[in-house]
């Protein structure tokens, strides 16, 4: 096998695994947007808050990684409910910009609280999967990426099951389709909204854990980075389409890894945003979405 082809394949494998992580981020944004028809710009901050909070039991009691993982999820859910309560629940209907602004306000509050509490320094994260690369045939892969792959597949399966096999999932899809009609038929839109926040915030906890693990630390830049990537993935796949978000995440992961390897790391983000811009111009509905109304 030629070197370029070999390297390309190795980066393809890594890109697909890391793409699962992007798919999770984009999926969280997509689920919220699909049901609420609104952006939650505080989602990146929810993720970051969970990642930081997970470290508290570790620093205090030297708790095992499992406790850290559970703490990230629990705290993310609590922060998510706080976002719903402060930014969405009491907002008057019919103003598209107001929820954008309230979540920006929340983003500032959460980020600054974390910066204030930690003096803006990154906190070291444990490496539960070790840092020895695993050999998959001739290719070397990172163990934490492999864990991301396994966990995100579990996550996606659970969400598909939830969406298509349970009463809650049916209510969620009904609200996403037509909130008024769903309300008339007896679906509590508020309940669905709150439960959607619980679901996506639990995802945020998982995302936060893996984001911090793959970088090796919890950092204040995480929120902006994840928000940027999440929005790109969401648009790539088509706003509100969950399978589209998975596809978009995988595509972004592969493209970034190939770009870093063949073009150098300084072109990685510029490539992501150029693709975003082009896709919006050529296919405004995203890869799997319909044309926006």
């Amino acid at each position, binding site marked *: 096998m030629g070197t370029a082809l070999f390297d390309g394949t190795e980066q393809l494998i890594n890109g697909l695994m890391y793409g699962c992580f992007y798919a999770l981020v984009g999926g969280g944004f997509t689920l919220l947007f699909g049901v609420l028809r609104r952006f939650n710009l505080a989602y990146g901050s929810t993720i970051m808050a969970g990642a930081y909070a997970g470290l508290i039991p570790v620093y205090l009691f030297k708790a095992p990684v499992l406790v850290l993982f559970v703490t990230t999820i629990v705290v993310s859910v609590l922060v998510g409910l706080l976002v719903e309560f402060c930014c969405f629940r009491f*907002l008057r209907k019919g*103003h598209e*910009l*107001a929820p*954008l602004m309230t979540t*920006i306000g929340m983003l500032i*509050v959460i980020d600054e609280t974390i910066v204030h509490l930690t003096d803006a320094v990154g906190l070291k994260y444990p490496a539960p999967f070790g840092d020895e690369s695993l050999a998959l045939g001739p290719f070397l892969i990172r163990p934490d990426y492999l864990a991301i792959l396994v966990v995100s597949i579990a996550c996606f399966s659970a969400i598909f099951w939830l969406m298509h096999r349970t009463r809650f999932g049916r209510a969620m899809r009904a609200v996403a389709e037509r909130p008024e009609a769903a309300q008339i038929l007896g679906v509590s839109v508020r309940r669905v909204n709150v439960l959607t926040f619980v679901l996506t915030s639990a995802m945020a906890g998982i995302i936060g854990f893996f984001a911090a693990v793959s970088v090796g630390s919890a950092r204040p830049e995480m929120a902006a980075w994840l928000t940027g990537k999440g929005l790109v993935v969401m648009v790539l796949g088509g706003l509100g389409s969950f399978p589209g978000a998975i596809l978009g995440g995988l595509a972004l992961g592969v493209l970034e890894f190939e770009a870093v390897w063949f073009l150098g790391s300084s072109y990685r983000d510029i490539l992501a945003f150029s693709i*975003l*811009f082009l896709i*919006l111009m050529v296919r405004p509905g995203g890869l799997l979405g319909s044309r926006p109304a």
Partner: protein
Amino acid sequence: MEYYIAIASIIGIHAMLGLSVYLVAISGQMSFGQQGFFALGAYLAGMSTALWGLHLLPALALGVVVAAVVGLLVGFPALRVRGLYLAIATFGFGEIVRLAFLNVRYTRRIGDRVVGPNASEGFRHVRYIYDRGITPLEYLGIILLALAVVVVLFFALERSKLGATLRAVEEDEVAASMVGINVTRAKVFGFTAAAGVAGLAGGLFVHYSSYIDHDMVALPLAIASVTYPIFGGLGSFVGPLLGAVVLVGLTESLRALHDAREIIYGALIILTMLFRPRGLVDEALVLRVKGWLRPRAVRRPAPAP
């Protein structure tokens, strides 16, 4: 005193950014990419004076023109998408510009300094106002003069047919096109002019601070420039001005509280949106004020049926 001059300068520059977003918003669009035009204006104007030895005025003009031309080129394809899609597309554009400046190196050695855009180290030593002996107070005058010109243009725009056209597009694009308004042209005009205003703000900023780098035109600046008009209100150009004065003034006056001031800032935005979802100066308030200002004779009671 110098402290207050600095705050006033920042308010003037940020007010222009707010007006830039506002101009896009009154045709019903939302841009998260004005910081990209700000960066273009800043780098171009800075290179003009620091590297090419131009006078400040043509330098600023060059920044405005380049930003506006790019705005036109970006606006045509970008305005095919609407609402939240456009918000993301424009943010993508802003990031592309920022990341481009993160990689561009175009420097020259002048004396013992390296001048020019120097990739991740930023663009240092834009020393025009120091070399010419312009004091901060005089430069504040230049900023406020430029702001006054922009405000007068906005004042005229809001009273012109063009202003009404933009508002009509915001209300209902289909209805607007039914009465013969070229919707695309109106939107692209708004976007191009807004890009020029952001470019002007950038050019003024780089000479004020003598320095700019890619970090200064990232997401926080996008958020700030969007916050001014939405917080201040989209009913009139007074809204973004008020937003910039209140929010910049507030962060500065709360300096004694250190980090807590940012938290208060965020909380204040949330509270304002809950009670006034169209901002402080919304359309209803503008109509009421216009009612007060109108001569009494015109305000006849409605004829009895």
